[in-house]
């Protein structure tokens, strides 16, 4: 391989955003800059598919590794993918063009700046998923705050300032502790290269405290109860495309971080904190599901459901079983598709009615039958009905959990029932029922571009629900390797005691 394919993936959106920045801005040109952004992001999507095509499922090592000296003797720019990260890269490159299409009418002012922000966001998100150096990872991870802050703050709803500040300060507060941990790791091992640290291993004494520092960052980003409160605010106020990016990809950074860093770097500490994570995940699953039941705002309901779904993810990751980890990754991909689609669905009706309150709707099926169908698919995806991708993820996670702890798995299963309750109730109240609000009659059914986006998300949701093989195959070897090394380290540490 001579082409630095990962660096091209990272840089392409950045180059696109620079290109858009330097084109003259006039109202007419906005359309053309949208096409540029779309073209760039679609090209990036195909590039990532090509990456997947070249990717070798059968080895657990990092592939397509590129390494360049950045700060001599200190930090090297190092990127690479394994079975875990490649799926997130594809998810990112898949969701971004859909976001760009979806801004068709919703963003009226400063469309150009919005596109630039989204493309920079894509660069940073891909960077997060393929960086193999802690400092590089931190740069990408934190850099994402800037465009997201602006997306929420400039193009958001009424309380956007409050939400943008809350989002920014919460995540920053979590991350600074991670920075201290990263620097400490550097002084302990003499490197920030993840592969090397995997080999060297970290001293048992410090693992717990370092784990907590990383946890503080990932827990805020996941978000885990009780630091989830920024998420509903950010989601509700962000424009549709922003919510989609946030739900589909940003939250996954934390799940990915848990697998790559918490599990990989601190196996002993991860083992030690399992009860803690289980407890928080269960609270997230049950409590936020109950909260979701009571929501009157559609976006808020989906936001809380995201917290609950991410609770499943953290639960699955910390089972340390093949099924649990595969399920978590599957669940993250599936949640990326489904929650993105649900936010887009809310965006569709919001754009027509300018309200997100569930009570203002009802009987939409008679006016918008096409919308009712896709909304149904994603509602069921959110519920985790067999035949949608949501089912596979939750099922695998619960399988892994039952292996480890019966009680935890039983309580988590409650979450599945609650999910069915709040999602189906939402669907019933919005789509079925009598048409009381006469304003709804003015609504028109899905436009062509909306059909394209929503079906583009619906097809993989159903496809992976029936045929999860391609995803599972990709992650299998990497996960197996991760679990094996994990178990080995635990055994060794027990033996040494």
């Amino acid at each position, binding site marked *: 391989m001579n082409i630095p394919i990962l660096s091209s993936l990272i840089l392409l959106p950045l180059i696109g955003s620079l290109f858009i920045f330097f084109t003259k801005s006039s109202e007419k040109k906005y359309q053309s800059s949208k096409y540029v952004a779309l073209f760039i992001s679609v090209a990036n999507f195909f590039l990532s598919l090509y990456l997947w095509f070249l990717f070798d499922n059968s080895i657990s090592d990092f592939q397509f590794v590129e390494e360049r000296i950045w700060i*001599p003797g200190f930090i090297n720019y190092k990127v690479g993918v394994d079975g875990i990260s490649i799926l997130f890269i594809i998810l990112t490159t898949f969701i971004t063009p859909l976001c760009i299409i979806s801004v068709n009418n919703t963003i009226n002012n400063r469309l150009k700046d919005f596109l630039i922000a989204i493309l920079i966001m894509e660069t940073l998100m891909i960077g997060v998923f393929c960086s193999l150096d802690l400092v590089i990872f931190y740069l990408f991870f934190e850099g994402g705050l800037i465009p997201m802050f602006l997306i929420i*703050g400039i193009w958001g709803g009424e309380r956007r300032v409050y939400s943008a500040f809350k989002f920014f300060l919460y995540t920053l507060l979590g991350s600074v502790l991670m920075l201290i941990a990263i620097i400490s790791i550097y002084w302990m091992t003499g490197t920030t290269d993840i592969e090397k640290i995997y080999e060297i291993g970290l001293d048992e004494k410090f693992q717990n405290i370092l784990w907590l520092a990383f946890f503080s960052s990932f827990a805020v980003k996941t978000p885990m109860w009780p630091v989830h409160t920024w998420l509903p605010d950010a989601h509700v106020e962000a424009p549709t495309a922003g919510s989609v990016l946030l739900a589909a990809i940003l939250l996954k950074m934390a799940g990915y971080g848990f697998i790559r860093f918490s599990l990989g770097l601190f196996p002993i500490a991860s083992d030690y904190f399992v009860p803690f994570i289980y407890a928080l995940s269960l609270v997230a699953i049950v409590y936020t599901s109950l909260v979701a039941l009571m929501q009157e705002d559609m976006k808020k309901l989906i936001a809380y459901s995201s917290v609950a779904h991410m609770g499943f993810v953290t639960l699955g990751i910390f089972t340390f079983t093949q099924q649990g980890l595969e399920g978590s990754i599957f669940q993250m991909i599936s949640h990326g598709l489904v929650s993105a689609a649900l936010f887009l669905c809310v965006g569709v009706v919001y754009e027509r009615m300018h309200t997100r309150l569930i009570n203002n709707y009802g009987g939409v099926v008679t006016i918008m039958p096409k919308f009712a169908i896709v909304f149904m698919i994603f509602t069921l995806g959110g519920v985790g009905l067999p035949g949608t991708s949501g089912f596979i993820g939750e099922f695998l996670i619960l399988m892994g959990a039952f292996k480890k702890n019966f009680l935890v798995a039983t309580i988590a299963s409650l979450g599945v029932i609650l999910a069915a309750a709040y999602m189906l109730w939402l669907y019933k109240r919005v789509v079925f029922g009598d048409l009381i609000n006469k304003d709804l009659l003015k609504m028109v059914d899905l436009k062509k571009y909306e059909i394209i986006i929503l079906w583009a998300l619906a097809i993989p949701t159903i496809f992976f629900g029936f045929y999860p093989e391609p995803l599972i195959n990709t992650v299998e070897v990497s996960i197996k390797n991760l679990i094996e090394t994990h178990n080995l380290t635990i055994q060794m540490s027990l033996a040494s005691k």
Partner: protein
Amino acid sequence: MIIGLNLIFPEIFLSLALMFLLILGVFKKNSSNLIFNLTILSLIIVAALILNISSEDETSIFNASYKIDNLSSFMKILTILSAIFVMLTSSKYLKLLKIFQIEYPILILSSILGMMVMISSNDLIVFYMGLELQSLALYVLASFNRDNLLSSESGVKYFVLSALSSGLLLYGCSLIYGFSGSTNFNEISFNIADNQYGITFGIVFILVGLAFKISAVPFHMWAPDVYQGSPTTVTLFFAIVPKIAALCVFIRFLYVPFLEIIDQWQMIIIFLSIASMILGAVAAIGQRNIKRLIAYSSISHIGYALAGVSTGTNEGIQSSITYITIYVIMNLAFFSCILMMKKNDKYYETIDDLSGLSKNHPILSLSMLIILFSLAGIPPLAGFFAKFYIFTAVIERSMYFLAIIGLLSTVVAAFYYLRIIKIIYFDPSKEKYDSDHSIGLKLSLILSTLFILFYFIYPNSLIGIISKINII
């Protein structure tokens, strides 16, 4: 010829140029423009001369009371470059305020001369001489807009407090001389014995004086008033240039004679650092005036630079110097933005005047966005790297407490930077400012913003030079 005279040729040239320009300005009517240009020219020449004499080896002259090494060369060049940029941004502002007079460049030159002496000083007396030379020029500069009440007030306030702190500093010098028998830094280090409380008292008094000059908490009281009262370009000068020299003296004074007794002063520096970081972050939240806000923000930035000094390692010093360099560039960029907020020959300087700037001035507000995120220390901008190096050095010494306090106060500080961004980007637009800025102002804004934005591509550009500074 006296040995080593060629090594202080830059200083000699600068003093000659200073006198020549003063005479020229007095005898030639309406020569302000000419003197401004000549000042910039002579500063460039001085920078070139310094580059010319700088070598890898460190050399001491005049009985080892004056030192030329990598540290002094770097800091001098940094001082002079920032002074050049201050001059470039000044002319239009001063013309509009009708204080475009020959004294301004001459005072700047003489304070630069004082700073150069400070930076190279390896002796308490030489150091004090340089300090006073720069301070006297600064008092006058603070009250340069003499018809303005605030400006005169700030000049007097600065003078009174600064004189007091100089007195304390001088008292500390005398204590150290009394207990060690020498004023030379190297000789002091040979003569100190354990448990000499006189020496410790001396260090404390000198640190009080230095902390005042660098505006570290609790000796920061003058900074907000003087920053607000002085003409904006003078504020810019105050915010960046004296800090470079003072930090250099901090390093040299603590590391050359007193590295052995680091236990005695380390806690003082840590206290100054933590107090500055926290107070700078918290007090800035309530400010409405941008210059006052920048005063508090610079207090907190100085706290970070001092955190590097407190480590007692070469890495710590290097990280401090990196920090101050990036800080200088960020402040230069930010003040260039403020100097662009003018309408109908009137300058605006409250935060609310920035409201909705992004509608009318997209490029200006984009650069402000970059600068503010950089000041807040968000990656991948230069400000993040500055903090990153500091904390790398601090954590190397296992000073986790300092690191955690420092990083938590960045989160607090992020709040007020974000508030400015919010006002620029999220609020409705208000003023439309003029766009006829001088080339010098535009140049300094563009160069510094580009540096902040693209620093991450090749961080070695700065680190490579600074890593050559070894003082221990």
